[in-house]
Structure formats: C-alpha cells, structure tokens
C-alpha cells in the first residue's frame, strides 16, 4: 500500500522522517500495524490518548537507545536486546500511568503491557533506528508515535461520540440520544477502521490520479 517503498538509508532530513509517519507511512492507516490496541482500546477518547502517548513514549525511548547502541550490539542478539529495551520502557510507562491516573490504568488494563508486542515499535527499531543516527531515529519515532496517536484518536472520537454520546467523558448530546452500543464493542472498531481506511484510500487515489 505504501508508495514510498523501503526507507532510504542515507536520508538525513529529519523533517521528512517526522512527516512520513503522519500521513504517507502512517502506522495505522497505511502500514496497518499494531491493530490490537487500535481495535481494543479506542472505545473512548481518553483511552486512545493514553495509549497513544504511552506508545509514543516507548517508541521514542527505544529509538534513542537502539540507535545509540547500534554499533555495539552483535547482530545475532539484536532482536533480543531490542525486546528487552522495549519491555523495560513499557514497564516504566506502566508504572508512570499508574502513578498519574489509576482510572486510566484500570480502563486500559492489560493493553499497556501488550505495548511490548506492538509490531510498530519493534518494526521501527529494526527497520529504522538500528540503521540511522540518533537524531533521525528520534524524528522517525516521534512521527510514527504521533501518527499512531492521531489515528487511534480519530477512532476513539468516532466511537465514543456515537457509542456513549460523550467526548472524553463529557456528555455532548441531550438525554434523548440513544447510544449505538455496537460502537463501544469490538465490532464497532472494525466498522470505524474500515470506513476510515476506505475514506483515506479514496482520498489518496483521487489525489494520485488528479494531481499528477
């Protein structure tokens, strides 16, 4: 689906690395990676935001450390060390979320720990951070993290608005609004994701044929 092809190794323009994660190589809408949290925890805006920020934190921290150690780690054990780094940062994020907001931690439940196996993070570590200098890796991770956060926020906004008639917990419709229960159930996530992918691909296709 991605038209840009594999990452160019010598590219050092940080801004490009940052921007590609937002749209052209958006981890959710273009690469379709990390679908487990995308479908599971986007039932409210708050959950989406916390998950997005936690994932971005882990992405950036692991990008820094993977990039900084890329010349010391023997190739044979690199995946194992990446996973160890990622797991460390996920556990740190887990403690921090618990300290900041117990209710957010409760509503995300096991999905915080499951960031470890989010393929976006290992994917960026292996495909980008392990081959690029730290500054580029940070920009790449930030772009991917923010792209991921925006994508799941879009799902969260649609699902919470329709499914509970609220925005980040505040009611936005009158009491006569009948919530679409399906939207807060896992099935609703598939519907919303499907429609968003449809819209984005239609938009990209139109730009492609009309623009050039």
């Amino acid at each position, binding site marked *: 689906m991605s038209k840009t092809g594999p990452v160019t190794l010598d590219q050092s323009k940080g801004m490009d690395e940052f921007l590609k994660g937002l749209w052209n190589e958006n981890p959710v809408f273009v690469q379709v990676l990390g679908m487990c949290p995308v479908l599971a925890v986007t*039932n409210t805006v708050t959950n989406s935001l916390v998950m997005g920020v936690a994932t971005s934190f882990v992405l950036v921290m692991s990008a820094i450390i993977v990039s900084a150690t890329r010349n*010391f*780690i*023997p*190739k*044979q*054990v690199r995946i*194992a*060390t990446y996973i*160890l*780094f990622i*797991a*460390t940062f996920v*556990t*740190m994020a887990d*403690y*921090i979320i*618990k*300290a*900041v907001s*117990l209710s957010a931690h*409760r509503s995300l*439940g096991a999905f915080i720990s499951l960031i470890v196996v989010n393929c976006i993070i290992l994917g960026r570590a292996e495909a980008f951070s392990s*081959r690029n200098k730290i500054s580029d890796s940070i920009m790449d991770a930030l772009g991917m993290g923010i792209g991921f956060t925006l994508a799941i926020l879009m799902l969260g906004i649609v699902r919470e608005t329709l*499914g*509970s008639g609220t925005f980040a917990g505040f009611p936005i419709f009158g009491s006569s609004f009948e*919530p679409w*229960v399906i939207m*807060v*159930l896992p099935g609703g996530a598939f519907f919303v994701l499907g429609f968003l992918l449809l819209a984005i691909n239609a938009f990209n296709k139109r730009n492609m044929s009309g623009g050039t």
Partner: protein
Amino acid sequence: MKDQHHDIGKVERQVGSEADVMESSQSEQRAPAQTPNSFKMIATMGAVGLVASILLVLTYTWTLPTIVANLEAYLEESIREVLPETTLRTDWRLTEEGVAVDDGTFTIEPRLFAGFREDGSLEGLAIEAQGQGYADIIRIIYGYSPDCGCIIGMKVLESRETPGLGDKIAKDPTFLSNFDALDVRFSISDSTVEGPLELIKRGTNLSAWQIDAISGATISSQAITDILNASNQVVLPVIHENLDLLKGGSDE
C-alpha cells in the same frame, strides 16, 4: 547493512570453493557464515539486562509512593461512596477466629472497614467481596448497617463486563438505588441469613430484599446478587458476633 553482510559471506564461500568444491558445498549448509563471538553476545545481553533492571528499579521507587497514595485515595473514595456519613474508619480483616485489626501482616484475608460518623457512632461496615461475572471476576465493596440490618450502598471496584450492557452495574443510577436500603434478611437471634436476596425483572413489585435487574444485563445483575448473597452468608454472622469489638474498635 544486511546486503553488506551477505556479500562478505559470499566472498568467503568463493574462497572456500576454490580450495575444495565438494567439501564446501556440504559445510556451506551446516556451519553459519560467521561464528559469532559468544562472549561478546553474552556480555552485551548482560549489560543490557543490567541497564534495564537499573531503569526499572529507579522508576519503581520513584513512582511507588504516588501509586500507593492513589490506591489509598481510591479506597477512601469507595468507602465514602458506600458509607456516605463516615468520617473516621478502622481497618479489619476477617480471620478464621472472627475479626482482627488490620496491622499490615495479613495478605489474603478479606478486608473489612468500620466507618464511624462524626459523633463517634458506627455508621456501618464496608465489606469487600468478589465473584464471577459475565466476563471476568467482579470485585465490589458494599456498605452494611448492623442497626437496620440492611445494605446501604454498593460500588463496583473492578469489572470487565460488556461495555454498554453489563457495565451498567457500575453506573446505572436506578440499579444502584437498589442498594440504598436493601434488607439482607438477617436474623440476629439465630445469627444466620434467613433467605437470599432475590433478583427480579423490572416492573414487578419490590420487596425490601429484592433487587431490580437491569434489562439486557440480567447475568451481570445476577452476578452482583450472588456475590452479595455469598458474602452475606459468611460475613454477617461474624460481624454481629464481633459487633462490640468493631464498635469500640478505634485502637487509638
């Protein structure tokens, strides 16, 4: 980098094939292209593990006080919800012998909180209970008033019930109002629960010990009823046996 690595391997293999063609075609498949230095690998993994554990310990010690404070605040808030007039509380544990002051040495014994009004009279006991719901274990806390022999409040502490249906047990105001004054049918003379709480469908006449089910969430409503019944059977006799102890229980 991957391509480079591959090229080096190829060059080596070519050198080998010049020496002995037949031999190399066999060894080529078995032996890895480059024998890694295992000491370096172990040392790297060890160093990474050390750094990781230091980071974890630092974060843990840094966040622990806040997490403990959060948990305590959450418990405090939950108790205030089920015992609204309480200003002072004492913590207890249910033991095999009865009740004991929670001095931090207990682990699995169920917790019990005695809540006192401002004038020092016992408002009620907050009791933690849990049981199987539709999706997972539901944990609740409920307030019991020994004076009226009734439940005066219930709060769901933890549940994974279906959003929009089963999770109404935690939020639905009509359902929660069932627990404002729910007769537990406890007989002080016999020190037993005479009959269970009953779950009924919405719209029928309510007796003081009946719980009005949430339509569309009968299983979750039944789960709450069952949890309360199971807990009442065990806890209420103990509470009434030790009522004087619990009443005077401010161990100050």
